[in-house]
């Protein structure tokens, strides 16, 4: 499950993420991080489910970090898509590929919802869901 962690003002100096990793022993993988001196937004992959996942989320929340579960990602409208491929190689996690017919396919499990593809699509066929 991918999680988007929003650090409120003042929480950035605290090693919240490291603390959660040490407490839960869940190997969180940082996929994307935008950190400023005052706020931060980090996208992580937590390779766990059920109670373990809930524990990770609750530990973050206890520290005042807001957690969003990234459930759906983006949708490619097949009626608008021209199968060009402009969105494919810019995807930083290789969640988009072209099949042998050059049709564009999205692997939702890999998507981190960075939305780079939404802007990149020349015919606006990709929308955030």
């Amino acid at each position, binding site marked *: 499950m991918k999680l988007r962690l929003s650090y409120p003002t003042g929480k950035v100096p605290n090693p919240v993420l490291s603390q959660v990793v040490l407490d839960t022993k869940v190997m969180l993988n940082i996929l994307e991080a935008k950190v400023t001196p005052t706020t931060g937004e980090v996208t992580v992959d937590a390779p766990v489910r059920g109670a373990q996942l809930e524990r990770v989320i609750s530990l973050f929340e206890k520290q005042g970090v807001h957690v969003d579960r990234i459930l759906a990602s983006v949708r490619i409208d097949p009626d608008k898509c*021209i*199968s*060009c*491929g*402009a*969105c*494919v*190689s*810019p995807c*930083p996690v*290789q969640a988009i*590929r*072209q099949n042998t*017919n*050059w*049709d564009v396919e999205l692997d939702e499990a890999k998507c981190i919802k960075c939305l*780079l593809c939404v*802007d*990149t699509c*020349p*015919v*606006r066929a990709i929308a955030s869901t």
Partner: protein
Amino acid sequence: MAKQVGAESLRTYEEINAKIKRGDAIVVTADEFISHVAEYGLEASAKEVDVVTTGTFGAMCSSGAFLNFGHSEPPIKMSHCWLNDVPAYKGLAAVDAYIGATAMSESQGFEYGGGHVIEDLVRGKEVHLRGEAYGTDCYPRRAIETTFTLKDLNQATLINPRNAYQHYNAATNGTDKIIHTYMGTLLPQFGNITYSGAGQLSPLYKDKGFQTIGIGTRIFLGGGLGYVIGEGTQHSPQTQFGTIMVRGDLREMSPRYLRGATYYKYGTTLYVGVGIPIPILNMSVAESAALTDDDIHTKVLDYGVPSRGRPAVCDASYAELKSGNVLIKGRKTPTSPLSSFKYAKEIAETLKRWVLKEKFLLSRPAELLPERREFKPLETDRHETKSGHASSTSVPRNPERGESR
């Protein structure tokens, strides 16, 4: 004896057209021709196949349409006009205008441009016209506002000064920042490669020596019938950057093969579908039509260097580019196309069907295109100042997306 360019030593245009009319011409797509050559050899294939069809569907900024609106009552000689808020060129007669693909909406900026106006017209959508004039004794009206559709126009002619580059450079980015270019989104530190052109289906690469394509060549253009009307701008065939200028009636075209597009932080453009039938007139044309993605190479340029002399990072064939990865400095770098191979194939197949079933005849060009053309740079007299450049008020600013170059 030197081989004559365009020599009809295997078959003539007349022989091909007679076969098309009889219904026994052998017409294959460039992909099929390549397979045929692999199986039977070049000579046997060249003897058997009359015509090879090609196709490409990519962003072609040098595209646009001449429109004639007809005269209003009282009449107007518009000095400026806007179509759905996109400025069209009005330095022409009273109600003639040219809408260019890269002109951007003064209200929507990057999201809507001339390419989108052309697509909307072809879709049959209503387009809003606003015009201004200073008024003359013969054209007293000074302002006009109305709507029209493609059907209402007297003429709507797509005339694209530069289309269908033989091949094109691929792009990557060696800087530490993501950049947004006319070659799409390029990730930092050589994070990806984008490329354009249809490779082994590319119309102008399949007649590499310009032995058959010339003024008057009948082609597939935007889903309708078009013609080559000359060399395209920046035509540079000796480096395989040959281009063509084309024209066709917008009213015969299809929105499937004319699509308005936006390159993020770059601007608007038009995806144009072009397909050209290549008559296999001689062995040298056959050889060119048989070139494969392995044979067609391009340079991968660093678009992180904002100069006309962008350095080449490496060389790659279209086969390598199409494989999804190319090595840059020993590292596997993801590649993806910007032009649509799916549509390019569809265009080559459609054109094949037209020649076979709809008696699309091949035209002997009135004049062949130059085989050499110098591609000259523009020298400047003074350096650009840091503060005083390109801040014209006519450039639309998009509040959400910031200003482009």
